[in-house]
């Protein structure tokens, strides 16, 4: 395992942690945090697609107007735009999940999903 694959391993470990938390934990807030961890791991994976070894940030310094040279040294900015969108989507989803959790606590009196099981069959 070279140094370059270490961030991918991190993304995989975070993904598995997130999935474990969603599947195995009973508290609603912990499940929401599991979704958040999974989302961070996938954003990390997506961001790593744009990395270039020894590349610069995709911001043009003053005076650097040559597009060809700029594109040859900077990292790929497209995955950064993709994860920005993904983070915003995740934020919206998180807000909705938290609102649902608050309302569920109001109706059921508990955050334990094993006690919120009215719909069966």
């Amino acid at each position: 395992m070279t140094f370059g694959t270490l961030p991918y391993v991190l993304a995989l470990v975070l993904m598995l942690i997130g999935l474990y938390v969603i599947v195995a934990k009973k508290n609603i807030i912990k499940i929401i945090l599991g979704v958040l961890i999974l989302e961070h791991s996938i954003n990390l994976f997506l961001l790593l697609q744009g990395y270039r070894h020894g590349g610069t940030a995709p911001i043009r310094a003053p005076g650097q107007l040559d597009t060809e040279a700029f594109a040859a040294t900077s990292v790929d900015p497209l995955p950064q735009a993709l994860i920005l969108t993904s983070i915003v989507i995740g934020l919206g989803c998180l807000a909705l999940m938290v609102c649902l959790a608050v309302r569920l606590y109001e109706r059921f009196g508990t955050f334990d999903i094993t006690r919120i099981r009215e719909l069966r069959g």
Partner: protein
Amino acid sequence: MPAGMSLIVKTVARLAVSFITVFGIYIIIYGHLTPGGGFAGGTILAAGLVLLLLAFGRQRARQIVTHEAVITWDCMGALGFAAVAVLGYVAGGFFVNFLARGEPYHLASGGTIVLSNSAIGAKVGAGLFGMFWALAAFRSSRTKEEQP
């Protein structure tokens, strides 16, 4: 018990909110030159408003930023973004840049990017603050029912 926090917090919050708002607006409108843009700047604006709410309590914060104001900024942000996109038809297509592109590295060099960023910043700021406020108001309405 008076709402909000102590006098020290209120005084510092009054000073800080101005700076936070200016910083948020800076991040929004320089979005095409430095990292940031609409979403990041909008989050900072919302954080400033949340500071207001925490320091002064819900009632006072609602007087400063009313429910109608939040909804209006929210919807106007989204409609402003849609308007920028539809106005692009004037210049030949959907979402095409119809403003003059100025000189590089200047504030006025982004074309319609500044308008789009401002719209998104307004929407995100209003939206995030509205979310926080709705959750705070919900919790308070519930604890009020429980009190004898």
